[in-house]
């Protein structure tokens, strides 16, 4: 990757890099301490210039020093928050009789979501499923993939493109199987991983 026009983020307290350099729209800055209503600071730099910016979760970064860069801040903690909100949905939250995600679906979803952080492969959405569980979805162009974690512990991986027939795999709940599935999804969404 050419280093030109890459933007580097540093934790202002430790001066350590907080994530891989980012360049593109929809790049994500993974910053573990950031929470919804708490502003933390990061130092952003590119070829010589630096600036300090305050960040909150889901804030888009669009500074004068980084024209063309619009990244988004995500954090493992936001996943926990989202899942916690889902767990507290009322019974029949959708009017179609669905129960909210339970602790089994939440546990498996968190496992998958932390793996996405390790792999630098953030999902596009995390939503409650009408089928009683959690759906973690990934998207690129017309390509879609979903890991659906059910309340009974079952997990399926779904991939499809546009209006094509979906390909579905049933997997177990071990970390290895979830990681293999994420690699399978990554390969589908972005091409072969390195």
């Amino acid at each position, binding site marked *: 990757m050419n280093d030109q026009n890459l933007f580097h983020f540093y934790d202002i307290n430790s001066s350590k890099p907080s994530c891989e350099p980012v360049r593109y729209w929809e790049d994500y800055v993974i910053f573990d301490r950031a929470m919804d209503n708490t502003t933390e600071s990061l130092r952003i730099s590119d070829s010589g210039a630096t600036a300090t910016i305050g960040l909150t979760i889901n804030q888009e970064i669009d500074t004068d020093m980084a024209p063309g860069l619009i990244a988004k801040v995500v954090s493992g903690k936001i996943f926990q928050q989202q899942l916690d909100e889902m767990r507290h949905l009322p019974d029949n939250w*959708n*009017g*179609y*009789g*669905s129960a909210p995600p339970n602790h089994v679906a939440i546990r498996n979803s968190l496992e998958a979501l932390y793996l996405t952080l390790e792999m630098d492969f953030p999902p*596009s*959405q995390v*939503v*409650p*499923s*009408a*089928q009683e569980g959690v*759906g973690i*979805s990934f*998207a690129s162009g017309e390509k*879609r993939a*979903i890991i*659906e974690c*059910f309340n009974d512990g*079952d997990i*399926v991986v*779904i991939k*499809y493109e546009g*209006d094509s*027939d*979906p390909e*579905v*795999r*049933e997997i177990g709940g071990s970390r290895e199987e979830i990681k293999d599935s994420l690699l399978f999804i990554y390969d589908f969404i972005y091409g072969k991983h390195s």
Partner: protein
Amino acid sequence: MESIPDEMFRKGRPIVSLFSPEEDLYIRFNQVDGNKVHPMCIRYPNQSVNRGNYSDPDWVLIPKSKFWDWGYGAFKVKDVPKALISVGGARNNLTVEHDPLEENYAHTEIRAYKNSIRVKNPNKSILAKFQVRLSQKIHILRLPVS
């Protein structure tokens, strides 16, 4: 108390088993993925819908005190797959069945049968296929309020 349109009530009207393949079915949802309904908004089996012959599209948002910010969409009876096969080869046959409620004459369910017995605990690969296949067919009439 929220008022329900008078035309929604059953008022002794019969079950109408016959569906045209072109009849609209209406569904509500609260998530989209791109320009489609998110597959996670769909249940299998027994997804409730309102049939177009006996309802306005937005009646799926009643009670509006609960669903005012949801979206709704339409698909055709012919869009419901006739059958779905699991990864292991099990087959579910799907039907669209008018199931009127006293306060919602148009209420209809998409039901599944395996060897002529109604499916209660669906195979996960079949239900996932159904979620995607139906989401691909739904024409969004109103997006959820973000």
